[in-house]
């Protein structure tokens, strides 16, 4: 049914069968033929292509040639409507533009290496459950990009962003255009019922903000994903990201300072805040992403926390094992 939203209604259907006898005939500017398909770029207003619009066209062309030559974005199965949007606001043209820097970071900055992308089911609802690290959520971006660039066929994965992102100008809609959703259980359920893949970090901020002395130690997992997995019969693919810990090794986390500036954490790394905002730049570590075999669980989604904890611990153990494997195989942090 949510898919129905995106299916354009049949224009040729006898839409007026219910119309009133029309004593006041409407002036009939109803276009006889459907208008030409909307131009790719919908961000710039106005009817005529502006300078920016034409520039955008050139960029699009270049991206098509260089960044996404086999048009992997088209192979993504998310249904979109006649305007190119899905019901959460995802739009391929926005993603295509973002791929320009994203691909460079993925291939040349972090030189991401993936293992076992084929273990993620090609279709159907699925949870990707991963460890969270590195102060900035670049691990999420790299997992999404690995599913796009290094999986055959590519698969779109959604993540959930913090609610307050919806209040920040530009991010408020860009995250949606790139296919991400606001982190509310109802939204997660909707996406899973649409048979899509969703990436969850059950450690949340506990994981991403931890200091370097606890690197690759999994923090406490939230249970919410397991309840949804049991309720909706969602397979769980454990994912381990090796490398992200070293992109910003935090020596301390000044939570009090974070509270004052309204951030969830305030890490102190060798370069931040020493070098100012520039110090936030992650170090060019090498990322290794390991995908595990899908796990399935049965049980009552409304079980007590203790019962659910056992199942969550099984997932956690699997991720820990993948992490150990990755750390053992790694010869150097930077290559």
């Amino acid at each position, binding site marked *: 049914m949510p898919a129905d939203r995106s299916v354009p*209604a049949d*224009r040729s259907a006898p839409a007026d069968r219910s119309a009133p006898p029309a*004593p*006041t005939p*409407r002036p009939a500017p109803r276009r006889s033929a459907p208008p030409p398909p909307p131009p790719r770029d919908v961000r710039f207003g106005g009817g005529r292509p502006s300078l920016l619009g034409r520039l955008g066209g050139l960029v699009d062309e270049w991206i098509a040639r260089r960044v996404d030559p086999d048009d992997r974005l088209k192979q993504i199965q998310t249904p979109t*409507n006649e305007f190119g949007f899905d019901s959460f606001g995802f739009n391929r043209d926005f993603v295509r533009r973002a791929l320009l820097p994203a691909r460079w970071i993925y291939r040349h900055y972090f030189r991401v290496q993936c293992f076992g992308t084929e273990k993620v089911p090609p279709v159907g609802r699925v949870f990707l459950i991963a460890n969270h690290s590195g102060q900035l959520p670049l691990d999420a971006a790299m997992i999404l990009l690995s599913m796009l660039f290094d999986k055959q066929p590519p698969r779109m994965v959604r993540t959930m962003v913090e609610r307050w992102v919806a209040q920040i100008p530009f991010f408020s809609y860009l995250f949606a255009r790139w296919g991400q959703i606001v982190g509310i259980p109802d939204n997660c359920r909707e996406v899973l019922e649409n048979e899509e893949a969703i990436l969850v970090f059950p450690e949340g901020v506990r994981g991403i903000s931890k200091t370097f002395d606890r690197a690759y130690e999994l923090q406490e997992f939230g249970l919410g994903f397991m309840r949804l997995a049991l309720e909706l019969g969602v397979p769980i693919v454990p994912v381990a990201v090796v490398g992200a810990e070293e992109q910003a090794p935090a020596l301390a986390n000044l939570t009090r300072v974070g509270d004052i500036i309204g951030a969830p954490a305030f890490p102190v790394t060798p370069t931040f805040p020493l070098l100012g905002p520039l110090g936030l730049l992650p170090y060019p570590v090498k990322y290794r992403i390991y995908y595990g075999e899908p796990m399935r669980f049965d049980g009552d989604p409304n079980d007590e926390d203790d019962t659910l904890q056992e199942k969550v611990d099984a997932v956690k153990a699997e991720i820990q094992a993948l992490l150990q494997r990755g750390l053992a195989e790694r010869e150097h942090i930077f290559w």
Partner: protein
Amino acid sequence: MAGPEQDERSGQPNGTPGIGPDEPVVIVTGAAGNLGRRLTRRLHRDYGVVGIDRRPFPNRPKDVALEQIDIRRNRAENVFRRYAGRIKAVFHTGILHDMRKPASEHYSFNLVGTTQVLNFCVRYKVPKFVFLSSANVYGPHPHNAQFLTEDAPLRGSEGFPMIRDLVAVDHAVSSFLWKRPEIDTVILRPVHIVGAVKNAPSNYLRLRYVPTLLGFDPMVQIIHVEDVVEAMVLSARPGVRGIFNLTGPGEVPLSAILKELGKVRVPVPHPLAKPLLRFLWNSRLTTFPEPELDHIRFICMVDGARAREVLGFEAKRSLRDTIHAAVEAGPLAVPR
């Protein structure tokens, strides 16, 4: 147009020209409104239609009786008395939306008026009450789920106190739904209605230069007024009761609608837009009160699954047609 004072019907105690003495009738409040007229024209072939409105309804179909009376007056009960026993349904669309009117008038017309109609329905054993509310009662909010179900809290007046009477009316009819199991009450909460209507979203889309909020581009849902009328007719079926969100043919970002309509967008930073719009409103230079800004900033989208499953409702018009209907103002709507 003959007013109610000139009682032409004194010689016809049991009927009006066009409505047979035993013909089943439906009552439409707010029949002279843009939506009420469409509903009336849609219904009058199947039922005798009695409209109640304080405004005139020129060029109405000959078999539609109009009682030009304020619903709050005691004399409004005469309409129910006259057709007692054969009123099949009451369609309540007579809601005051003019934001310039004082709150007292809003409460009096909307809440007191609606309560009065509900009491008439009980007293004259009307089996069906269909009320047209709006998805705006949920309110735009950054924490909203992408698709709000009918169970979501009605926080529409949280940031928009001027519409608290509309939320109160929705609550009043909801409790009536549970208090009176013998009456099939239907509450419809459609998304932004466009077409030949006058309301905030249509007026916004009819602007020549459309202000938007810089950095915000929420997904929106719109529905064609004819689709809403169709849903109201579907809700009139016996046995159907409950609360239903009505969704149109899909959801698109606001920018895509403006682009499709070829509008010139004027992005304004939101810290600036609020005081600016408040100033314009206070100077009576705009019809949009400042809290409406949240509608072009945050999402307020609803899940129409219940209406699809229970009512069998599906919007007939395509997304593109619905978008264009917003500005292809018919003769009933205001000029651009």
